[in-house]
C-alpha cells in the first residue's frame, strides 16, 4: 500500500520535476542551498501527499507546497539571490545570449519580497491569472494588478540603470 503510494508519488514528482527545479532556482542562491531546498521541498511534498486528491491538478498542488516551503525556508535562512548566477559557472560558460536577460531577471527577483517572487515565478511559468490566484490565495484581479505593478517596477529599474550608465 505504502510502496504503491510511494511509487505513484515518485512518478508524479518525476513528471513534474521542472516545477521543483524552477522554485529551487528562484529561491536558492548557491548550489548547496538549492540542493538543501530541493530536499526540504521533497520531504514536504511527501508529507503532504496523503492529502492530495486524485483528479485535482498535481502541478497546482505542487506549486503550493513547493512555494510555501521555499518562502519559509528563505525567511528562515535569510537567503538572498541578488547577483545570482543560475547554477555554477561551469553550467553557464557556454550560455546563450538570452542568459544576459535572465541575469537581469534574477537581479529583479533578488529585490523582490518572497510573495512577489512566487507571483513572478508563476507568471513566468505561463499559469493563467486564475491559476496563479488559486496557488497564492488571492483573486485573479489582484494578480493582474500586482503583475502590472511588477511591470512598472521593471521599467523604472531599467530606466534608472540606463540613466546611471549615461551619467
Amino acid at each position, binding site marked *: 500500500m505504502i510502496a504503491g503510494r510511494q511509487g505513484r508519488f515518485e512518478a508524479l514528482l518525476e513528471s513534474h520535476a521542472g516545477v521543483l527545479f524552477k522554485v529551487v532556482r528562484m529561491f536558492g542562491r548557491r548550489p548547496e542551498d538549492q540542493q538543501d531546498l530541493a530536499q526540504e521541498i521533497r520531504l514536504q511534498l511527501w508529507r503532504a501527499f496523503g492529502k492530495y486528491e486524485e483528479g485535482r491538478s498535481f502541478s497546482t498542488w505542487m506549486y503550493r507546497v513547493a512555494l510555501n516551503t521555499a518562502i519559509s525556508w528563505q525567511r528562515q535562512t535569510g537567503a538572498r539571490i541578488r547577483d545570482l548566477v543560475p547554477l555554477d559557472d561551469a553550467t553557464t560558460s557556454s550560455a546563450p545570449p538570452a542568459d544576459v536577460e535572465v541575469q*537581469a*531577471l534574477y537581479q529583479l527577483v533578488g529585490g523582490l519580497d518572497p510573495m512577489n517572487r512566487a507571483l513572478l515565478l508563476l507568471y513566468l511559468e505561463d499559469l493563467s491569472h486564475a491559476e496563479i490566484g488559486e496557488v497564492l490565495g488571492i483573486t485573479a484581479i489582484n494578480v493582474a494588478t500586482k503583475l502590472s505593478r511588477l511591470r512598472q517596477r521593471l521599467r523604472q529599474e531599467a530606466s534608472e540603470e540606463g540613466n546611471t550608465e549615461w551619467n
Partner: protein
Amino acid sequence: MELEEMKANWKAVNQRLDQVQAVQVALANRELKGRGRSAANRLRVEPIYELVLAGGAVLWAGNFLASNFAKVQQWPVAAIPALALYPLAILTIWCSVSQLGILSDLDFAAPILDTQTKLGTIKKIRVLSTQAMLLLGVPLWFLFPILLGQALVRFEIVLAVSPQWILGNLVFGGLFSAAMVWAARRFGEGSGFFRRINAILAGDAIANAERELREVAEFGNDA
C-alpha cells in the same frame, strides 16, 4: 526588458538548466537520503519539548508550595523560586499551546497566503517566547540545577539553603541579565551569537516577524 520578453528567455534557459539540475538534485538526494528531519519537523518538536518542560515546572512549583505550605509561611523567601517560576511556565505553556493549535491546522498544500500567515504568527509567538525566556528565565537560572537535583535526590534543596543564598542568586541572575543586554548591544554588530540575542532583546526579531506578517497581509488585501 519587459516581463513578456523575460518569459520567453526564462523558458529557453530553463529547459537547459532543468537537465543540469536534475543531475545535481539526484546526487544531492542520494547524499541526503538518511536525513529524515526537516525545518517543519522542528516547528512541531520545539513547542512539545517546551510544553513538557513548562508543565513539569508548574507541577513542581504547585507540589512544592502544597507540601511545604507551613514552612513557606514561616520562611516566605523559600516560596520565591516556585512563585517566580509560575509566570514563566504559564507563559511558556500558552506560547506552546498556541503554536501547536496553529500547527494542527497548518497545511503546506493550502494557498500560500493562508499558510504564510500561520507560519508568520508562529514565528512571532516563538520570538516572544524566547524574549520572555531570556528576560525572565535568566534571573531564575539557579532554579534549573535545583530542579534537576531534586528530581535526582528527591530532597527539597530550596528548603535546605539560606534565604541569602536564594536572594543572592536572584540578584546575580538579574545582574547577569543586565550584562547580557549590555553585551548584546555592545557586540551585537560583530558576533553572530550576540547579534541574534540583540535582535531578540531589542525587539528587532519581533519587528521582523511583524513585518513579514504585514507583507503577507498587504499582499492579500492590496487589490
